[in-house]
């Protein structure tokens, strides 16, 4: 199973103020907060970790059938980080997920899987729709769908 999450960084900057008092503490574990606050680019680190959590949550909630809002229980770890790519892990109470993230100036896209081998074969399609009118995509049978702001991300296995 695959999960994916796309974040429109321009929209995120207007929708959310992660510097708000109490914000980081509610959704990030202490280790993640440290990663953010010591990062050279905290904005990117916030949304990178968030997209990793979201992508993992999509798999976890589908598998367990349980919905809950406990983002700090999906704990992110960064294995590798360059200016345009990151490899990471999400630890939950029961599972370990692997993540791969693409980082652009206005967008972060994370794919997530328990099985690392899936990353070699999956195909991601990210498209821009300025009016947020996304085209019909169901017929192409994507394995995971995410959209935020002007971005639509579809992942195929």
């Amino acid at each position, binding site marked *: 199973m695959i999960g994916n999450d796309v974040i429109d960084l321009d929209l*995120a900057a207007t*929708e*959310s103020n992660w510097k*708000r*008092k*109490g*914000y980081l503490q*509610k*959704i990030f574990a202490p280790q993640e907060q440290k990663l953010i606050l010591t990062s050279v680019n905290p904005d990117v680190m916030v949304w990178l970790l*968030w997209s990793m959590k*979201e992508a993992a949550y999509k798999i976890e909630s589908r598998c367990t059938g349980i*919905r*809950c*809002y*406990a*983002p*700090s*229980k999906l704990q992110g770890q960064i294995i590798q980080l360059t200016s345009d790519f990151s490899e990471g892990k999400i630890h939950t109470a029961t599972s370990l997920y692997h993540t791969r993230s693409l980082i652009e100036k206005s967008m972060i896209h994370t794919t997530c899987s328990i099985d690392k081998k899936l990353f070699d074969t999956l195909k991601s399609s990210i498209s821009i729709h300025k009016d947020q009118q996304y085209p019909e995509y169901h017929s192409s049978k994507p394995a995971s769908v995410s959209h*935020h702001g002007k971005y639509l991300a579809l992942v195929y296995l």
Partner: protein
Amino acid sequence: MNKEELILRLKPIVDTYAQDKAAMENLNDHTDFIKDLHINSANLVDLVLDIEEQFDIEIDNTSMEKMLTIGAAIEIIQEKINTNDR
């Protein structure tokens, strides 16, 4: 605080983050913040922080986990207010 008063104070907070304004017209206990009101999941924490400020309560992570519907939010707020009063 009775339930009507509580809803009156909760509604404007929810409205700030609700992207589906039509769904705001028929709020009920089952209204789902994410599925019905299309609140961005990164804004759900803002909703929780606003509720804490508005009602002068603290919502711990265990309570926040359940905060997915209007009904759940009302229940949690009432529970925390009652704890404060004790």
